[in-house]
């Protein structure tokens, strides 16, 4: 049985359940936008929900859960690239608030 056959024989139930979860998570992001919290707290909460949404989409809509080798390949490469882009954050805080150790 090929992967295509496996996909074809499975019902849409799981896909619809994931779709509903994604709608709920997207709704949570919109609720967070109107909470009376700081921007940094808002950022962390929204990003956490977005990562959860992306995980669901990758695993079930894009079928990564069915191929562990490919899942690790995609995950390691993507996370490595994204982590590599984070080196500038300290400088952005310095531009906003000055050098912290100068105070």
């Amino acid at each position, binding site marked *: 049985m090929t992967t295509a*056959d496996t996909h074809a024989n499975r019902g849409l139930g799981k896909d619809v359940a994931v779709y509903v979860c994604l709608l709920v998570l*997207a709704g949570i992001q919109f609720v967070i936008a109107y909470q009376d919290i700081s921007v940094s707290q808002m*950022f962390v909460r929204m990003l956490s929900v977005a990562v959860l*949404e992306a995980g669901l*989409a990758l695993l079930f*809509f894009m079928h990564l859960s069915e191929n562990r080798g490919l899942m690790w*390949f995609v995950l390691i490469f*993507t996370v490595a690239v994204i982590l590599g882009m*984070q080196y500038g954050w300290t400088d952005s805080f310095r531009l*906003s608030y000055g050098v912290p150790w100068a105070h």
Partner: protein
Amino acid sequence: MSQADLSIHGQVSRTSATEIMAAPAFSVPAKKMAMWLFIIADTATFAGCLVAYGFIRNSTPNWPRPFHSIINVAVMTLVLLTSSLTMLIAVRSAQKGDKAGAFRWTMITAVAGILFATLHIREWMGMIGEGATLFHNPWGTPLFGSLFFSITGLHLLHVTGGVVALIAVGLRYKGGRYRADDLEITGLYWHFVDLVWMFVVPLVYLLNVAH
């Protein structure tokens, strides 16, 4: 192995070598793997844009928060998420051999993409109507307009490309030139476009809602 062995077993050896060389990485067909590599590269592009946006937003005091209503964005999100589901139905239909159903759902996905793009342009027109351009806006730092239009524009470009791909692949699938696999690969791209939107909405829109 002697030359004679090679000539006797040449055919077998060549077949084995071909099989080894052709063994797809992670048991994924080459076309699908190419799409995954494109998705990884495109993730880096969007991540670069969003990290740059975060850097500039964080280091700019009094960043503009011009969005009074997020109903349009909410509808856009609903449309794009639903289009991912219709794409899944299209692929599932194709894998079952239901050609007409697969084509119909692919076209429904494309229509959802067009609706999303229309709502997106409506959002842009509203912003432009309020005086926001790439290098100018009435709310403060001009970088807001540059980043807003660049990031959402890049995503809109991907949606537009996706709609064209969906229509082209759908028609060719209907005409018998493409198979269910090709539809599945196009679906991967479409889900990726949806996935990117999950990050664009909170970072570009929801963090900038006026309170």
